[in-house]
């Protein structure tokens, strides 16, 4: 392999990329689009069921209730309570009647009014009802003969939940890398279709030089964008070295896959079609981060799992090398295998 030739080929690819100003601008706009998606997503997780309460006379059970996940805010009047509900300060406004304690003592059932915004989902209304009833049970001294033994599985994140946008972070970074690979597959197939690859092969450049150059171009484009994205959205605040390593290995992985895709398609249409199939498959593990529980162990057969899992655990949980060392090792192995298959397949095709 001739490094001078490889360098020249990389410079050629980059100059072609930036000469097409429209394509270059669109790449930047695409990156901005991902950033916009990130920043419009909720930045915090509201973990509490916030209930407004107006009570001229406050029964002790309502006064003493201190459950994690339940926030009771007192209102000075029923009107203020209603205003709070309409303004979205609380999900429900509860009004306790002035004679509630007398009613409890005399065995009557007082009526508790609950104000909800009209667009409150039914499940929230039902949840508030059971919470209020449970407090009333406690107030009237009705006990339950059950004991609960509780075990928290996994790190307990109460009070320090991962915001939606941070859950989306690995998904967006991985999507950036994958989409760039789709572009690379198209560029390669364009060279094959337009036979410029054959023209290059009659120069001192070898097929190896050509593919290494293409690979480095693809890896650089994907890697730089993903790193930029992660840096801007604060994804590098924890374990930056692990994330950089994972993104680099991920960029190599998708470059290898894009070589295979470019060799599979007989024209650009089929390259694009195969490429989007690849995009969907590689994207699946990221869904598991957003929607935990819908994917089971089989997801580990998808190579991008090891990238997504590493970025998620390192950026959202601060996982260190000791926790995730196996993922980069598997990624590295997959990189070698897929890049080798990709170069082999592409070499055959360009012959």
């Amino acid at each position, binding site marked *: 392999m001739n490094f001078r030739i490889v360098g020249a080929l990389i410079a050629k690819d980059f100059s072609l990329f930036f000469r097409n100003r429209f394509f270059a601008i669109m790449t930047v706009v695409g990156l901005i689009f991902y950033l916009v998606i990130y920043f419009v997503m909720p930045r915090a997780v509201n973990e509490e069921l916030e209930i407004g309460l107006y009570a001229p006379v406050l029964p002790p059970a309502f006064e003493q209730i201190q459950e994690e996940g339940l926030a009771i805010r007192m209102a000075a009047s029923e009107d203020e309570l209603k205003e709070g509900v309409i303004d979205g300060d609380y999900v429900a406004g509860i009004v306790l009647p002035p004679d509630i304690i007398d009613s409890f003592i005399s065995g009557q059932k007082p*009526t508790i009014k609950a104000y909800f915004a009209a*667009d409150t989902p039914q*499940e929230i209304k039902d949840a508030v009802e059971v919470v209020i009833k449970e407090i009333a049970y406690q107030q009237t001294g009705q006990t339950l003969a059950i004991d609960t033994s509780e075990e928290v599985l996994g790190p307990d994140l109460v009070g320090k939940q991962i915001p939606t946008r941070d859950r989306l972070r690995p998904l967006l970074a991985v999507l950036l890398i994958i989409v760039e690979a789709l572009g690379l597959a198209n560029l390669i197939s364009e060279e094959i279709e337009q036979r410029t690859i054959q023209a290059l092969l009659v120069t001192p450049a070898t097929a190896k030089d050509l593919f290494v150059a293409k690979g480095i171009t693809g890896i650089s484009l994907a890697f730089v964008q993903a790193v930029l994205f992660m840096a801007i959205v604060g994804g590098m605040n924890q374990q930056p070295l692990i994330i950089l390593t994972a993104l680099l290995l991920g960029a190599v992985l998708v470059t290898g896959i894009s070589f295979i895709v470019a060799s599979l398609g007989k024209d650009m249409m089929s390259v694009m079609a195969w490429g989007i199939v690849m995009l969907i498959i590689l994207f699946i593990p990221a869904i598991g981060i957003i929607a935990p529980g819908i994917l089971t162990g089989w997801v580990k057969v998808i190579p991008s799992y090891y990238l997504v899992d590493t970025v998620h655990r390192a950026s959202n949980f601060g996982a260190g090398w000791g926790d995730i060392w196996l993922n980069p090792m598997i990624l590295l192995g997959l990189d070698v295998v897929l890049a080798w298959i990709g170069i082999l397949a592409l070499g055959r095709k360009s012959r």
Partner: protein
Amino acid sequence: MSLKRIGFLLGKEVLQGSKTYFFVFAIVAPLVISLMLSLIFGTLFDEKAKLGIVDEGTSQLVAMTRESDSLTTREYGTVSDVQQAVKNGAVDIGIVLPEDFDNSIEQGKETTIKAYVWGESLAKHRIILAVTIANMVRELAGQEAPVEFEAISLGDGVSIPWNERLLPFIVLMAVFLGGLVLPATSVINEKQKRTLEALVVTPTTVGEIFTAKGLVGLVLSLFMGIVILLLNQAFGAEPALLVTVLALGAVMAATIGLLLGAFIKDITTLLAVWKFGGILLFAPAFIYMFPEIPQWIGRIFPTYYVLQPIVEISQWGGGWPAIATNVFILIALDIILIGVVVYALKKKEQYAV
């Protein structure tokens, strides 16, 4: 313009095009992407707490949780299954009901419930599940709620579940993915292979070629729109009106696709345009998903006039009077777009070919 030649070209497009991988893909992709989006967003913004339950006996509590609106229940056969579900985050809390649980409760015997809590579950989900189960157990024990509960609604907003909020986006994607991308890629492909040049030296005109390609996109777009609505059981009470709106949306998709095909010279650039142009196409659907965003912003985007009538008919049970203005705007937009395509082909034939 010769209808015979258009028919011949259309036949060629359908026969040759339908054999291509991309044609099949344009049908499969919207279905797969719809499913993925439903999973991602449906779960991401799902407000319901999820309960996993293992019943070692035959407790009525299982049926009671199943009927409850405030939570989603999943039943598991073994303790290790429910533990795994909790670890994966499939449920917020997993409980194990011991054998003879109901009898113990009725007799007031001290009973222990084993509960596994997913570490990432929200505190409010934990408390909702805990009090809901406690309420149900009290019911089993024959305890009567010491209060009456009266729910009063304030304002005139309507709660829109996430599966309904997602529908416009899914429909737009189904209509525009095939309807727009297929004609665009087909034209670009012919330009790159220079087969378009070969065609226009015959009596066939560029207009006829574009019409045939546009028709394929239109039919595919309409078909996919109908399939997605059928799958989501969102056909509403006015199916004919809905199909008409979908057809007008399909015209918009196909004409935009032809315009892109006329001006873009390679697939890579199309991909780059799609990355950015997607924002403009799907913006009204995003705005619809989040009612906190002022809804008038959606009207700025052309696809709003496809989306609003579809939502009105399929979700609100609206009829012609409720959508007439927007349908007329949609027709006007379609005519303008067709005019732009015709003008572009006449004035910039060198780009088109």
